C-alpha cells in the first residue's frame, strides 16, 4: 500500500495557512523535524518559537502567545504533548479556552515505529478527550491531515490533532474533504454490524469488511475522524440499525473512540460495543505490521470479533 507522511502533511498544511493568515506561530520543543519543517523555519523564521526540549514551557508559552491574539500550533510527540505537558494544556490552554492547536505525532503503537512504548501515544485521545472544551481530531492519512490542519485553524479554541509516524498508508482519494464533526462511511454491505474507527487502521478495517461481506454479513464501516465533539446525531442511526457495533482503533481500549461510543450507546441506544485496540496493556517495539498482528488489530481478528458479536 502506498504511504505518505502525515507529519510532513502538517507542515504543508501550515504553508497553506500562511498564505492567508500571518498570525500563525509554530511552537517547537526541538520538534520541528518531527514534521519536517526545515523549509518552513527558513521561509518564516519569525513564525517559529523554538524553546528547546521543554514540552511544559512550550505548551504554556503557546498559551501566552495565543493570549496576544496570535495562533500557535505546538507540535510534539502524542505521548509528550498529552502527558508531559498535560497540566499546562489543561490549566493554561483549555481552561481559559485559548486558541492553541496541539499536534501529537506517533499516535498509536503502529505509528510509534520501532521506538517502543515510551514514544507511542497510546492514551493521548483519552486524556485530551477528558479535558473540557477540547476538540480531538484523528485524520487517517496524509491528505486528510493536510485538510485537517486548515480545518482546525478555523476553530477558535483548543484542538488536539493526532498524526502518525511519517510512513502512513494512503487511504482516501486526494480530493476527499475532511470536515470537522462529519463521520465518513467507507464501506457498506448492510447494517447488521457497524464498525467505527479512526486513524491508520482503516485499511485493516476495510479488508475485514470485505471478508465479512463475502461471507454474507451486512456490515458498514464509518470513520470517526472527529472524536470530540462526537457527532451523536450522525452516529446514532448506525447504532439504531445495527445488532452490534465494533470499534477499531490504535489506542488503549480505555479512553479512546471505543469509550466514546460506549458512552453514546449507553445514553442513546444500548447495543453491544466490542472494542478492538490495545486491551489495557502496553505494546512494544516492532514494525506496525508485527505490532498489529501481535496486539490484534488485524482483518482476521476484526472478522472473528464481528462474527462473535453477531452470534
Amino acid at each position, binding site marked *: 500500500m502506498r504511504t505518505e507522511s502525515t507529519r510532513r502533511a502538517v507542515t504543508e498544511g501550515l504553508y497553506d495557512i500562511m498564505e492567508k493568515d500571518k498570525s500563525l506561530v509554530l511552537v517547537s520543543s526541538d520538534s520541528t523535524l518531527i514534521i519536517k519543517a526545515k523549509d518552513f523555519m527558513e521561509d518564516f523564521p519569525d513564525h517559529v518559537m523554538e524553546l528547546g526540549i521543554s514540552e511544559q514551557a512550550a505548551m504554556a508559552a503557546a498559551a*501566552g502567545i495565543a493570549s496576544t491574539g496570535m495562533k500557535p500550533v505546538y507540535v510534539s510527540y502524542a505521548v509528550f504533548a498529552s502527558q508531559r505537558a498535560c497540566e*499546562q494544556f489543561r490549566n493554561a490552554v483549555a481552561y481559559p479556552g485559548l486558541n492553541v492547536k496541539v499536534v501529537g505525532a506517533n499516535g498509536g503503537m503502529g505509528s510509534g515505529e520501532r521506538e517502543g512504548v515510551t514514544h507511542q501515544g497510546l492514551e493521548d485521545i483519552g486524556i485530551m478527550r477528558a479535558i473540557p472544551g477540547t476538540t480531538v481530531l484523528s485524520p487517517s492519512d496524509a491528505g486528510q491531515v493536510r485538510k485537517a490542519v486548515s480545518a482546525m485553524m478555523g476553530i477558535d479554541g483548543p484542538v488536539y490533532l493526532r498524526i502518525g509516524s511519517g510512513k502512513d498508508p494512503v487511504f482516501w482519494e486526494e480530493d476527499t474533504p475532511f470536515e470537522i464533526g462529519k463521520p465518513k462511511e467507507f464501506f457498506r454491505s448492510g447494517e447488521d454490524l457497524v464498525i467505527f474507527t479512526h486513524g491508520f487502521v482503516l485499511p485493516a478495517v476495510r479488508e475485514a469488511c470485505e471478508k465479512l461481506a463475502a461471507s454474507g454479513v451486512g456490515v458498514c464501516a464509518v470513520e470517526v475522524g472527529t472524536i470530540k465533539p462526537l457527532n451523536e446525531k450522525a452516529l446514532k442511526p448506525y447504532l439504531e440499525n445495527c445488532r452490534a457495533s465494533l470499534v477499531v482503533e490504535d489506542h488503549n481500549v480505555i479512553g479512546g473512540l471505543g469509550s466514546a461510543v460506549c458512552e453514546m450507546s449507553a445514553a442513546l441506544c444500548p447495543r453491544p460495543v466490542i472494542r478492538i485496540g490495545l486491551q489495557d496493556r502496553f505494546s512494544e517495539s516492532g514494525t506496525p505490521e508485527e505490532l498489529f498482528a501481535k496486539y490484534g488489530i488485524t482483518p482476521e481478528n476484526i472478522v472473528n470479533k464481528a462474527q462473535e458479536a453477531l452470534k
Partner: protein
Amino acid sequence: MKGKKWEKQDLEDMARLLRKDVLEMIMNVSDGHPGAAYSSADIITALYFGGILTVDPERPDWEDRDRFVLSKGHACPLLYAALMRKGFIPEEERFTLRKINSRLQGHPDMAKTPGIDATTGPLGNGLAMAVGMAWALKQQKKDSRVFVLTGDGELQEGVVWEALQAAAKYRLNNLVIIVDNNRRQSGGLIDEVSGIMSLREKFQAFRLETKEIDGHDFDDILGGLDWAVACNGPALLIAHTVKGKGIDFMEEDNSWHKRVPTAEEYASGLAQLGGAVL
C-alpha cells in the same frame, strides 16, 4: 486619584488599603492565603499605582497594554484589590471572592476577570506563559512589556527553568521578572523544604540581568523596575520580602500561608492597617 502624582507616602497608603481589602475579603469568605498576598503587596502596588504598568480599566483587553502575570496565583486577592482600586472591578464585587458564580476565582482566571492577563495558580506556568506573551508581542513589534511576579518556592518547578532558557535565548528585553523572595513556602522555610537556593547565581548563569531589591521599599521597588525596563535583555529582580508583611502577628509566621484570622486577630489586623486614607 486620577491625575494625581503618586508620592512614596501615597503608595504606602495604597498598599495598606489593599492589605486591608484583602484581610476583609479573606475574612468574609473564610479562606485564602494572606501571607503570600502580603509579601507581594508593595510590589503589586508599585506596578499598578507607581506609574509602571500601562493599562486602561476602560479597555481591559486593549491589545497595546502592558501585561501583568501573577505567577504565584494564590496571592490573587491582593491583585483583585489592586484591580478594584484601579477601576477594573467594581468595589462591591470583592466579597464574591471564592464564592459560587463569582468572577473572582480562587486563582486568577483571565476568561472571567477584567484586568487578569493570565490564568495562573499552578506554580511555574505563569512565567512560561509570560515568556510566550513577551515573544509574541515582540514578534508583533509592539512596545508592550510583560511583568511577571513569581514566588520563590515556585522556582522549584522545572518549567520555570525551561522558560528562562527561552527568555534568555530570545533576549526578551520586554520581559521583567520579579521574584517575591519571602523565603517561605507552604511546608516551611525554603531552605529546609527544598534545600539550597543561590538564586542570584542561578539567574546569572541563565543570562538574566539580575538585581536585588527591598520588596517593601517603594524607592527600591520603583528604582529596580525602572532599571529592569531599561535592560537590554530579560531582567529579573530578586525582591527581598517578608511573608505576611503589614500585620505584626502574621510576619514570618508561616501558619499564615493559608489561614483565616479569628475575630480578635481580624480586629487587630484591621487596626494595624487602618491608617489608609486616600
